[in-house]
């Protein structure tokens, strides 16, 4: 009984003191409780820090993987033949150019009037880098849109292999090449993409006197230097110029186009150029043929072609000029008066912008004295080029040709030409 009374008193005491003790714990935790709380929070902070570090690491890995993926995607999506590990297909480049012409020619002889459209040239370039130093270049062309078999072997078009050569870079400044290549003469023979020149048709001097496009097979070597000087030398097959018929002594008719070409007598071309002054380009080339007809004793022997050309570009204004002359040896060619064949032209031009796109107007005067009567003339030409982008051009021009023999020949004409061209 005494035990029960004592227990009851204790319970009452505890009940009386409990509210006061509880309120004390809620307002002021004990030091040990605070210590436990800090330790728990520290553990939580460490967990969060570890999680953040893991997240950062994962983000870094993801970033690296993304970079690697993008590198790889970019590598396989472009022709990166600069990479040593690139496949053979990635080391092969394809390019090309083309030009569509419309010519409306009004001649002094009414029977020679003409109006025609012609896809004059469709060209594809195939180039391959065997290594950093060994390169292959080629140019494959379809002229006049159509080539077909005919009974007499004539048709309006041609399929031509104008370039196919291997080039070895000796260092950054020197090369040696062998194969079929364009001769380093004049302004257009090597660079004739339509956006690169004025006029729907190429100038006549570089068609009749310099028979461009002029390609031969052989060996070439050259160099260029930081002072703007450069040189090219080539030993190659030559022309087989006819000595009779309506095309007698016409050098353009002598092009063999490396098609089972007669290589009895070779030819040599040397060019020196200077471009060391901003906007200025000067060039001189000497071409020698040991026998331009390829046959000895036919009255047409050796021949030299000297060509001088220059251009100056200053801001929107440019001026281009070229002079070229053949000197041929042989009794027959001298008797015919075709031993000296000369042509020159001068071409000022001025560019401006139309709606932020480039346009240019030009004038050209040409004077030719070649083998055939029809190739002795002077010609005025004015025209307009419009480039909606660097690689696309629209052209129009007006030409007036007067032959040295007078209008009674019926070949004098006035012409309007329209054209478009591209390269890629």
């Amino acid at each position, binding site marked *: 009984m005494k035990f029960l009374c004592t227990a009851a008193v204790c319970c009452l005491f505890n009940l009386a003191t409990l509210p006061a003790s509880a309120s004390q714990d809620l307002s002021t935790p004990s030091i040990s409780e605070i210590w436990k709380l800090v330790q728990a929070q520290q553990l939580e902070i460490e967990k969060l820090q570890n999680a953040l570090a893991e997240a950062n690491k994962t983000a870094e890995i993801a970033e690296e993987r993304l970079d690697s993926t993008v590198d790889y995607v970019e590598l396989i999506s472009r022709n*990166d033949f600069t990479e040593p590990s690139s496949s053979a297909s990635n080391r092969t480049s394809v*390019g090309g150019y083309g030009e569509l012409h419309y010519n409306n020619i009004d001649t002094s002889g009414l029977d020679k009037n003409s109006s025609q459209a012609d896809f004059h040239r469709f060209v594809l370039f195939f180039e391959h880098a065997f290594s*950093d130093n060994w390169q292959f270049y080629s140019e494959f062309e379809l002229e006049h849109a159509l080539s077909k078999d005919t009974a007499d072997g004539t048709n309006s078009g041609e399929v031509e292999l104008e370039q196919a050569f291997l080039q070895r870079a000796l260092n950054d400044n020197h090369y040696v090449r062998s194969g079929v290549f364009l001769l380093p003469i004049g302004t257009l023979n090597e660079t004739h993409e339509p956006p690169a020149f004025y006029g729907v048709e190429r100038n006549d001097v570089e068609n009749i006197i310099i028979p461009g496009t002029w390609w031969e097979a052989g060996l070439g070597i050259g160099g260029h230097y930081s002072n703007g000087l450069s040189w090219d030398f080539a030993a190659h097959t030559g022309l087989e110029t006819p000595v009779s018929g309506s095309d007698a002594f016409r050098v353009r008719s002598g092009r063999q186009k490396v098609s089972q070409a007669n290589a009895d007598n070779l030819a040599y071309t040397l060019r020196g150029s200077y471009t060391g002054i901003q906007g200025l380009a000067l060039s001189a080339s000497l071409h020698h043929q040991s026998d331009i007809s390829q046959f000895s004793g036919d009255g047409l022997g050796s021949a030299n072609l000297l060509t001088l050309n220059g251009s100056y570009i200053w801001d929107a204004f440019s001026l281009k000029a070229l002079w070229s002359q053949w000197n041929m040896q042989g009794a027959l060619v001298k008797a015919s008066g075709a031993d000296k064949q000369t042509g020159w032209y001068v071409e000022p031009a001025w560019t401006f912008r139309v709606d932020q796109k480039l346009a240019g107007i030009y004038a050209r005067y040409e004077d030719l004295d070649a083998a055939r009567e029809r190739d002795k003339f002077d010609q005025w030409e004015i025209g307009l080029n419009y480039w909606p982008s660097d690689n696309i051009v629209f052209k129009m021009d007006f030409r007036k040709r007067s032959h040295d023999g007078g209008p009674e020949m019926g070949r004098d004409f006035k012409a309007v030409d329209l054209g478009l061209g591209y390269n890629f």
Partner: protein
Amino acid sequence: MYRRDLVLIYLSTFTCLFLASGFTASANADSYKEESARFVAEMFDHATPQLNALWLSPPMRSGLSDILGHAPRSLRIKYHHAADRTLWIFDEIGKVKPITIGVFIEAGKISTIRVLKFRESRGWEIKYSFFTDQFQRIGLTQQMQLTAPIDGITGATLSVAAMKRVAKAALFLDHSRNKIATTTPTVPVSNQMSQN
């Protein structure tokens, strides 16, 4: 007569090929990566600039396409920078093959433009200072044109056009980067690849 010619050309061929094979590897052109690294070191005075990547947003991709005449071949453009100086490296086709060109820009204007690797068969004139000097201190107008005319080179038209496109593209990206930098920090890239 012709036999003399043939002997001459054969001798010339073999002489040239002998000379070609005799050139040591050191005489060969350095790879474009070596040239690029040298260009970066020279432009930043041998300090190590930060290599960043500028991801091409749709407006930037569109602007770059207008300038280059073709869509950019990458999702982002890597560049080096330090303060207000940036350096960009592009591969741009002149005639058929890409020309590797480096552009160093200070305060929004071209300080140096240099051909790091030339692979075309013609148009080599753009490699030299008598041509590249005229790009110095040139900027970009709001109409995306260079602030000064560039005199071309007869016979190197396509290479000249390629270099002008690259100059415009670098200035455009430098400007775009500056606009982005005011709002969003660019992300440094981990590897040291300098080619875009």
